[in-house]
C-alpha cells in the first residue's frame, strides 16, 4: 500500500491540484476533468495492442535477429524498418517509449530507435492523411519530405554526441 502511494504520489498530487482548481475555478476544473477523462479512455482503447505486440516482440524475436535487422551494422535496412515500425503504429508518442525500450534491449542501434521515435511522432500514416485533409496536400507533403531526412539527421547527431559510456548506460537500463 505504502509502495503504491509512493509510486503514484506525483499522480495523486496532480489530482489534488485539479481538485483545488475545481474549487477555485469550477469551469476550468470541470473542463480539465472532462479532458483528462476522455484522454484516459482514448489511451486505454489505443494502448492494449501496443503492449501486446511489445510483449510478443520481447518473447519471440531473438536478440541476434534484432541485431541483424536493426543493429549497428543493419545500415539502410535498419533505417527502413525503424521508419516502418514507427509509421505503422497508432497511439500517442509516450506509448512509444516502452516499445523503444524493448528495441534497445534487443540490440537495436540507438539511432534506429531514435528514428523509430521520430517516425512515431510525425510520419504516422493516419495522421498524415488527417493533416492533408485539414491543411492541404502541399502542406503535408512539404512537411513529410523535409521530415524524413530531418528525423534521420536528428537521430544520427544525437547518437554521435553521446559518448560510449552514456550509450552503454542507456542499453543497460533498457535491459532491466
Amino acid at each position, binding site marked *: 500500500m505504502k509502495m503504491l502511494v509512493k509510486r503514484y504520489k506525483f499522480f495523486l498530487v*496532480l489530482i489534488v491540484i485539479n481538485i483545488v482548481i475545481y474549487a477555485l475555478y469550477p469551469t476550468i476544473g470541470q473542463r*480539465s476533468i472532462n479532458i483528462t477523462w476522455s484522454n484516459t479512455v482514448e489511451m486505454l482503447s489505443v494502448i492494449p495492442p501496443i503492449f501486446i505486440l511489445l510483449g*510478443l516482440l520481447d518473447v519471440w524475436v531473438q536478440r541476434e535477429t534484432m541485431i541483424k535487422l536493426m543493429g549497428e551494422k543493419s545500415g539502410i535496412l535498419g533505417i527502413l524498418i525503424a521508419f516502418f515500425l514507427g509509421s505503422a503504429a497508432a497511439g500517442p508518442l509516450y506509448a512509444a517509449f516502452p516499445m523503444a525500450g524493448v528495441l534497445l534491449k534487443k540490440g537495436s542501434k540507438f539511432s534506429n530507435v531514435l528514428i523509430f521515435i521520430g517516425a512515431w*511522432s510525425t510520419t504516422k500514416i493516419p495522421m498524415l492523411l488527417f493533416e492533408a485533409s485539414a491543411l492541404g496536400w502541399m502542406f503535408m507533403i512539404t*512537411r513529410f519530405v523535409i521530415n524524413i531526412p530531418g528525423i534521420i539527421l536528428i537521430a544520427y547527431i544525437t547518437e554521435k554526441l553521446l559518448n560510449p559510456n552514456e550509450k552503454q548506460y*542507456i542499453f543497460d537500463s533498457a535491459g532491466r
Partner: protein
Amino acid sequence: MFTILMYIVAFGFLILSFIKDKSKTSAALKKAWKSFENILPQFLAILVIIGIMLAVLSPEVISGLIGEKSGWLGMLMASVVGSVTLIPGFVAFPLASALLESGAGFRQIAVFISTLMMVGIVTIPLEIQYFGKKAAILRNSFAFVFSFLVAIAIGVVLR
C-alpha cells in the same frame, strides 16, 4: 479505423503465438502487463497534466497566442505552445486549420504542428527514463530547432 487494425494485428499474432507455444505466449502477456504497469504512474500523471493544461490553454487561448501574431514572434510563440502542450492529432489539425482561417500564417502553423508532434516537455521525464537525460534533452532540442527549418520551407513552398 487504424486502432481496429492494430487490434487485429496484435490479436492475430497473439493467437499465432498461442498455437505455437503456450508458455511463451503467457510470458509475452506477462511482459506486456509488467511494462504497462511499470509506466502507468507516469501515464496517469501525463494525462492529468494534459487535462489541466488544455483546460487553461483552450483553443480560444491558443488562437489568441498564435492567431494574430505574425513573423518571428508568432513563430516563437507557436513553438513554445507546441512544445509544452500535448494535443492529440484529431484536435490539433482542425485547430490549426481554424487558426489559418483566423489569420495565422503557414509558417506559424508549421512550427506549431512540428513542435507539437516532436517536442514533448510534459513527457520528457518519461523519455529520460528510457533514453537518459542527455539523449532526451538533445533529441528535443534538435527537434525544436528543426521545427523552424520546416516552417521556413513551408513558407517558401506555400506563399
